[in-house]
C-alpha cells in the first residue's frame, strides 16, 4: 500500500501526457478484470443476501415467495422496536438471550485466550518430549465437528454421566447439568428469592435480579465446551507467533538477568500483542454467534431459557415462528453488538497497529517539517522507517 502510493507520488502525473494516464487506466482495468470473478461471487453470495436480509428486517415478509414481491410492505423500524423497545415477550426473550450470551462471552473469551496461550507455551518448550503428540492432542477438538462434541458433552454432563461420577469420588453430588437453570451468581449468593428492590422489571423487561443471575449451570457446561474446543485453534496461532519470536530474544533477556516470569511478562507477551488482539477479536466474534451447540443440544434454549442466545433466537423467530422480519432484525442487532464489542476491545487493548499509525503520522509530520526547512536529513526518517518496519 504505502510503497505503491509513494511510487505514484513520485510520478509527476499531470506533467506527462495522455498516453501515461491511459496506460495506468488499462492497468487498473485489467486489475479489476482479474478480481471480477471474486467480486461477482462475493456480490451474489454475500452482498446480495445481506441486502435482502436488511430489507426483510424492515418489511412484513412472511416467508412465501420473493421478499421483493409486490405484496410485501415496508413497515419501518417496527421489527426493531418490538425487539429493542417493546415491553412484550419478544423484548424479554431478546434481553434474556443477550444476558446469557454476555456471560458466555465474558467467561469464554478470557479463559480460551489464557488457556490457549498456556498450551502454546507448553508445546513450544524445547525440553518437552512427544511435542508432536501434544500438539495434535490439543488441536484435536478443533477439527472435530461441534455437533459431535455437543453430543459427547450431553453424555459426559448427564445426571448420571462421567463428570458427575468423577465428582462423586470426592463426595460431591454433581448438578443435573443440562437441566439446571440456576445461575452461578445466584447460587453463590445462596440461591434465595429476589430482594424486592431488584425484582422490578428493568432493561428489556427483565428484573435486575435476573440480569445478575450469572450463567446457568447448563450454560456453564456450554462454556466449558467452548473453551475445550477453541483453545486448540488459538493455541496454533500463539504457537506460530511464539516461534516467530525466536530464541535470541529470550536469550538476550536471560543474559540481562530477567526471571522466567519477567521474560514472559515484559518480553514475550508484549511481542505477542498482535496475536492476542487477533485471538480476542476472533473469540469475541465467535462467542457472540454461538448457535450450533444450542441447536444440537435440542433444548431450544432451555432450561428456563438460560441457554437462549441471540443467534438461536433469530433462527427460531424466522424458521419456526415464521416471523422473518423479527428474525432478521435480531440478526442485525447482533451484528451491531459484535461491531461495538470489537471496537471497544480495540480501544481497550490499544489495537494491533495503533502505535504504528501514530508513528507513521509522526514520521509524516517530521518529513513535512524537514521539507519546510529544506534540509533533507537522511538519518532521522531512516530510523523511523526502521522502527515502523519492526512493529509490523
Amino acid at each position, binding site marked *: 500500500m504505502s510503497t505503491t502510493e509513494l511510487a*505514484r507520488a513520485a510520478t509527476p502525473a499531470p506533467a506527462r501526457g495522455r498516453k501515461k494516464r491511459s496506460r*495506468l*487506466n488499462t492497468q*487498473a*482495468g485489467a*486489475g*479489476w478484470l482479474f478480481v*471480477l470473478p471474486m*467480486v*461477482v461471487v462475493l*456480490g*451474489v453470495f454475500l*452482498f*446480495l443476501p445481506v*441486502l435482502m436480509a436488511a430489507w426483510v428486517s424492515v418489511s412484513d415478509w*412472511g*416467508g*412465501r*415467495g*420473493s421478499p*421483493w*414481491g409486490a405484496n410485501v410492505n415496508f413497515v419501518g423500524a417496527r421489527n426493531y422496536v418490538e425487539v429493542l423497545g417493546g415491553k*412484550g*415477550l*419478544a423484548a*424479554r*426473550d431478546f434481553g434474556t438471550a443477550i444476558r446469557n450470551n454476555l456471560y458466555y462471552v465474558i467467561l469464554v473469551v478470557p479463559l480460551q485466550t489464557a488457556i490457549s496461550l498456556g498450551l502454546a507455551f507448553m508445546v513450544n518448550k524445547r525440553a518437552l518430549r512427544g511435542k508432536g503428540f501434544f500438539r495434535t492432542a490439543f488441536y484435536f477438538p478443533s477439527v472435530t465437528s461441534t455437533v459431535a462434541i455437543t453430543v459427547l458433552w450431553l453424555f459426559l454432563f*448427564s*445426571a*448420571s454421566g462421567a463428570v458427575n461420577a468423577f465428582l462423586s469420588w470426592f463426595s460431591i453430588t454433581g448438578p*443435573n447439568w443440562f*437441566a439446571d*437453570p440456576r445461575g452461578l451468581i445466584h447460587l453463590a449468593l445462596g440461591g434465595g428469592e429476589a430482594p424486592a428492590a431488584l425484582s422490578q422489571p428493568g432493561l428489556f423487561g427483565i428484573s435486575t435480579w435476573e440480569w445478575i443471575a450469572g450463567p446457568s449451570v447448563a450454560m456453564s457446561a456450554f462454556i466449558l465446551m467452548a473453551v475445550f474446543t477453541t483453545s486448540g485453534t488459538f493455541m496454533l496461532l500463539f504457537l506460530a507467533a511464539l516461534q516467530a519470536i525466536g530464541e535470541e530474544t529470550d536469550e538476550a533477556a536471560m543474559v540481562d538477568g530477567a526471571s522466567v516470569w519477567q521474560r514472559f511478562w515484559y518480553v514475550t507477551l508484549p511481542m505477542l500483542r498482535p496475536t492476542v488482539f487477533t485471538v480476542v477479536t476472533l473469540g469475541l466474534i465467535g462467542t457472540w454467534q454461538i448457535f450450533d451447540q444450542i441447536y444440537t443440544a435440542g433444548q*431450544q*434454549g*432451555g*432450561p*428456563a*431459557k438460560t441457554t437462549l442466545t441471540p443467534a438461536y433466537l433469530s433462527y427460531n423467530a424466522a*424458521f*419456526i*415462528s*415464521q*416471523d422473518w422480519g423479527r428474525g432478521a432484525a435480531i440478526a442485525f442487532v447482533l451484528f451491531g453488538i459484535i461491531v461495538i464489542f470489537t471496537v471497544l476491545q480495540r480501544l481497550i487493548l490499544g489495537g494491533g497497529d495503533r502505535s504504528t499509525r501514530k508513528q507513521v503520522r509522526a514520521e509524516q509530520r517530521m518529513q513535512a517539517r524537514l521539507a519546510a526547512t529544506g534540509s533533507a536529513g537522511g538519518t532521522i526518517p531512516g530510523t523511523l522507517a526502521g522502527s515502523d518496519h519492526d512493529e509490523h
Partner: protein
Amino acid sequence: MHPSSRRAATAAVAVLASFSLAACGSGFSSSSSAPASGSASKNTNPVTVLIGSSGDAETASVKAAVAAWSTKSGVPAEVKVASDLVQQATQGFAGGKPDDVLYVSTDQLTGWAKNGSLEAYGDQLANKSDFYPGLVSAFTYDNKFYCAPKDFSTLALVINTAMWKEAGLTDADVPTTWDQLAAVAKKLTKGKRVGLAFGPELQRVGVFMAQAGGGLVSADGKAQANAQPNIDALAYVKKLMTDGNAAFSSDLGAGWGGEAFGKKEAAMVIEGNWITGAMSSTYPNVDYTVAELPAGAQKGTLQYTNCWGISADGDNKTAAVDLVSFLTTKDQQLTFAKDFGVMPSVQSAAEGYKTDNPKMVPFINGAAYAQNLPSMAGAADVIKDFNSQLAGLKTKDPKAILDATQSNLQAIVG
C-alpha cells in the same frame, strides 16, 4: 483514494447492482406463473410429498401408499424424507417451488396459513365429517379448514406392571380421580424411584389443567391462563412434587417421560401413544399397561396431530387433494396404524383400531375429551415461556407463573 480507483469502484458497484437485479429476476418470479397450470383438465405434473419420518417403517409405509395411488391415478408421485422438515418446507415456500404435499404440525399451521403458503382444501374432502371434530378444529385457521388430519396422539397414564404388583395394587386401584392418583403415586414411590413422572412442559402438565376444566385459552378464544382451574391444577402438581411422589423427567436425568419410565426411575408416566414404540425397541424388558388419565372436575387429556398440508404454490393441486383423500381413507389409515403405530384420524377406523391394538384403547378413548393446545400466531413462544417457568414450579407460586403467562397470552389473543 486515487481518482482512477474511485471510478473503478463505481463501476464495480454498478456491476454488482446489475447482477443482483438479474439474480432476483431469475430466482423468484417463476412462482407466480406456477399455480395457473393447476386447473388444467387432466394435469399430470408429478406430485412430490415431503415427510418428516419417524423411521424406516414409516418411510416404507408412506412410500408404498403413495406408489399405490400413483398407479391408480396415473400421476407420477415421489416421497421425499426431510431431515429438517420445517426448514426444508420453509425454503420451498420462500423459493416459490414448494413440495405439493407435506406434513404440517399444528404449531406450523398458523404461520404457513397466515403467509398464504398453504391451500385451504379441507372442505373439498368427501370424508370431511368422518374426522374427529377436535382434530378438524386444530387445523382450522381463520374459519377455514386447511388440511386433513393425518393421524393423532393423545396422552394417557402408562403404568409399570411389575412395580404396580410389588406395591400390592390391583386392577381395581387404577386411579380415576386426582386423590387416587396421589395415593397410588405415594405407594409407588420407593427410594430414588418416584411414583409419577412427566416432562417439565405444558405439553404434559397441561392435562391437569384440562382435567380441572381450564386450559390457557377458553372455548370462545379468550386468554384465561390465570383462571382458578389452572391455578388448582398447578397447585395439585406442585403438591405431588413437593411431597416427593412425582417429579419432572428432567429432574430424574431423563430426556423425556419414556426414558424415565424405561430406566425404571418412575413407576408411572404421562405420555402419548408413541411411547409404545420406544418401549418395544429400547426397553423391551419393561412390562406396562396403559390407563386413561384420572379425572379432576372432568375428564381431560391433550392431543397432538399433524396434517397433510397442500402448498398453495404447488403445480398439481387437484391431484394433491386426490392423493390426500386416498391417504386418509379408513383402510389406508389402518394400514398406517399397523405399520408404524399411529392412531387413525377418522372415527370410522376407531373400532378396527381397537380390535387390532387392544393395549392402545385408552389412548384412542382420549379422543372424546382431548383438548388442543393453543396454536395461534405467537402461541408457541408463550408456551415456551410458560415451560421455562414451569421448571421452577417446586419453589414458585403457581399463580405467579400463570399471571405472567396470562399477560403474554393477552398480547396475542386479546
